[in-house]
């Protein structure tokens, strides 16, 4: 029997998910949590096999909670179940140690399949997102063969890159750093050229994978875009 904990701040969704999983013969929902801090307490108390984790929750978000759970209880597998289909969230979750990333609009059967895969030591990424992982892997792998240009970045460019990785717009970065928006745009353009990326998403991934932006420093914590 696979023992599962559900972490989601939407009570009705949690209840529906519980009914869904409890209809599976090999899965038992042993606990629930409605925020990222509570789920850590529940995991400590119940030692589940798998946690199904929403990303945007109060107090502590799902990325931070995942990182803590993986660090403190490495035997527990965390599978992200989120509405977020953006690659920034996906990559942050995988960096935090998630053993899977599926979307809430996925077929119900796939949720149980992801739980079983995680339990078996495997990983499931939503098919609609898997290509983003492969694309990014290819890009990063090809970059490993060339010179890393991070040393060419100035302190200001590094800071801007961190803020891009945090999900801030040019205008917000301009406000934060006391620059004109046009200055931010121009300097980011130069920065992107230096590190060999084509857009903000690639820049954000670059920042995260090069340790420039803390994984938990997401758009959720900055409040710039939607939680969920």
């Amino acid at each position: 029997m696979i023992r599962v904990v559900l972490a989601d701040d939407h009570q009705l969704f949690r209840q529906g998910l519980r009914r869904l999983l409890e209809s599976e013969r090999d899965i038992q929902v042993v606990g629930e949590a409605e925020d990222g801090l509570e789920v850590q307490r529940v995991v400590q108390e119940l030692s589940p096999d798998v946690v199904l984790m929403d990303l945007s929750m109060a107090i502590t978000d799902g990325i931070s909670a995942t990182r803590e759970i993986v660090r403190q209880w490495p035997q527990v597998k965390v599978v992200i179940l989120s509405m977020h289909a953006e690659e920034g969230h996906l990559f942050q979750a995988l960096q935090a140690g998630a053993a899977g990333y599926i979307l809430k609009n996925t077929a119900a059967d796939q949720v149980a399949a992801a739980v079983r895969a995680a339990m078996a030591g495997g990983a499931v990424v939503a098919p609609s997102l898997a290509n983003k992982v492969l694309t990014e892997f290819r890009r990063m792998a090809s970059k490993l063969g060339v010179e890393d240009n991070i040393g060419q970045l100035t302190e200001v460019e590094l800071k801007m890159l961190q803020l891009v990785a945090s999900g801030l717009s040019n205008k917000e970065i301009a406000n934060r750093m006391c620059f004109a928006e046009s200055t931010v745009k121009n300097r980011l353009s130069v920065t992107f050229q230096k590190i060999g990326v084509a857009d903000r998403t690639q820049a954000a991934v670059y920042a995260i994978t090069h340790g420039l932006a803390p994984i938990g420093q997401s758009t959720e914590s900055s409040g710039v875009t939607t939680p969920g």
Partner: protein
Amino acid sequence: MAALCDHVAQVIHDRVLQALALSMLQADLCRRGIEAGDRETALAELSGIEPQLQAAVETLRGVIADLHAAAHAQPR
């Protein structure tokens, strides 16, 4: 305008998408109930879908009203 966009994105994400995701889940549970011959469960799940969709519709109406108001408030 940026603040409105953030607001709209947040409302759609937090309320509309969540309601639709829950409706999909309940529809699946309803189907499972029918397949298992469990009419009571199927009806219970089905009855949960309608308020979710109704809430999503109302939320979208509010979003549309906000967008209209913002559009007319923009200086030409």
